[in-house]
């Protein structure tokens, strides 16, 4: 599904060159939930952005669903991302003036589909958000927000979910719920790349890697 081949990424800042990824190589396939854990600032988010076609690596090659996203035009890359990848973030990034239903449907902005409303309805039911469907994010609990973000990520039925600290703001119960949904998605043939600093999250993965200073260390 996704394969990193000796991928490096660095940034030129005011204090010189900062290396975020250094010779990263790994792959994740369907039915896998790969957990990459490491301390803050080790390059986890950069890894996720690179995987999602949002951050071009300086070196190395990436293969996403059989294509190198960075060999494509920005337009084609956006299309590939819309069809293939779903994002889940620690901060949820829900649009504040849209209801739960409308936030879930934003996925259809990139991939217009006739059955989007029906799919959104199913996701609302699946994630237990029936009573909150017409509420805006500010009226939701953090768990509900994250479930909404997860439902949004699943609307276009992506092959890969990229999750950045998806349980970082959640209590234990809500974190378990989210992991439950991710595990269900993986067992249905999906693929998840999850980055976190939480060592407990590794227990939910089919595989775990540790990252330190831009390198995978085990």
């Amino acid at each position, binding site marked *: 599904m996704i394969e990193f081949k000796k991928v490096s990424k660095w940034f030129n800042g005011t204090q010189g060159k900062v290396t975020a990824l250094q010779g990263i190589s790994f792959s994740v396939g369907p039915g896998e939930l790969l957990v990459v854990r490491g301390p803050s600032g080790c390059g986890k*988010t*950069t890894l996720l*952005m690179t995987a*999602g076609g*949002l*951050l071009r690596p300086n070196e190395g090659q990436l293969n996403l669903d059989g294509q190198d996203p960075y060999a494509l035009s*920005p*337009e084609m890359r*956006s*299309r590939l*991302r*819309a*069809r293939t*990848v*779903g*994002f889940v*973030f*620690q*901060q949820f*990034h829900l*649009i*504040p*003036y*849209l209801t739960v239903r*409308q936030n879930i*449907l*934003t*996925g*259809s*902005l*990139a*991939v*217009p589909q006739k059955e*989007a409303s029906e799919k959104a309805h199913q996701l609302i039911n699946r994630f237990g958000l029936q009573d909150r469907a017409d509420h805006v994010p500010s009226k939701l609990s953090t768990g509900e927000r994250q479930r909404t973000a997860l439902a*949004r*990520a699943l609307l*276009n039925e992506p092959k890969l979910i990229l999750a*950045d*600290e998806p349980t970082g703001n959640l209590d234990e119960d809500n974190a378990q719920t989210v992991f439950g949904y991710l595990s269900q998605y993986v067992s249905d043939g999906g693929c998840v790349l999850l980055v976190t600093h939480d060592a407990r999250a590794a227990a939910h993965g089919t595989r775990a890697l540790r990252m330190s200073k831009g390198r995978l260390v085990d």
Partner: protein
Amino acid sequence: MTIWNLLIREILHRKLNFALGVLSVMVASGSLIGSITLLRIHDIHTDRLLEQKHAELEQRMAQLKDDTRKAMLKLGFNVVILPEDQNLSDWYAEDYASKYMPEEYVHKLADSGIVTVRHFLPSLQQKIEWPEQKRKIILVGARGEVPNLHKNPVKPMVQPVPPGTISLGYELHRSLGIKVGDTVELMGKTFEVNDCHKERGNKDDITAWIYLAEAQELLDKPGQINAILALECMCAGHEGLPLIRKEIAEILPGTQVIERGSRVIARAEARTKVEEQARLSIEKEKIARDELRAVRERLASIMTPVVVTACAVWIAVLGFTNVRARREEIGILRAIGVRSREVMVMFVSRHILLGVLGGALGFVAGVLAATYFGAAHEGLQVRMTDMDVSLADLIFIAIGGAAALAVIAGWIPTMVAARQDPADVLRNDN
């Protein structure tokens, strides 16, 4: 979910930002439309003012012209056409010409289309001894006025003396005890007295008028006359005599023209002067109004761009504020696959909507403000239908121009939004 749904919901969410943008466009559009409308109101006021002054002048001139015409008619013919070789000293001394010209001349003149003189009266005058009465008289042979057919028919100033009749001046009929209907002998020919004139206190009192052909026969001047009397037309203006002389010289080369009745001429000249003064005053009024318009136009040409530029800057600032507030939203939309072109369409559409709404409100506000306050200032009541500017053009300027202004002013914020790097936003916010 479509871009349009998102756009409308965002506007409803950030009402203040959008309302301030609409207000800004409204001010820009309103000031432009207001300026155009105010200038048009100025033009309407000027037109009405000048029309009124012209109407007053025309009325006054018509009255003066009528007065002068009546005065000239009262004083009788004031243009005398004499043979060219007539010595004027003799003519002034005798009051009739000793030289002759063909009677045909009067027809030539009447048929020429001349407009500066009218009422053509051919005459043959001579001072004679009335042999039967043993006294000096002035014998005048006259026929009716020769009509100039190219002009509207006018009532003749003198009634023709029918053939075989005679009209006598006061002194003649009084001293000789002659009455209308009597018969008199003149140079061996019998005439019936047709008219006995009242006292005039001039040479007319010793004048006898008979039919021209009979006078020509009695004086042995067949087909000859020695004067054509005419009335100067008001249309000749203050250049009257030189113009009349020029025209008559072209038609009747062997003649000369004398003008009589200086009081009437002075009156006509005064009338012309009054007209000139009035026209000059209207011209001055027009110049003053034009200068005022130029000042207003200059003011509008400075103020309007300043207001429009300030509004454009304000729209840009609001645009940047909006982009900044939606940074995270744009980042997530890009992350889920929305293309930068679609983000751009979303922002451009927002600015078009903002421009159209602001432009429409600005149009209404500008027209209303200019129509009511501007017209009140000019002391006018003006409606949109009074203005000859096309309503469609004004609406196009207001709405189209406002939409263009909003899009141009919001272009940089739009480009910033479209080019925003989603990774940058999501990495830093996470």
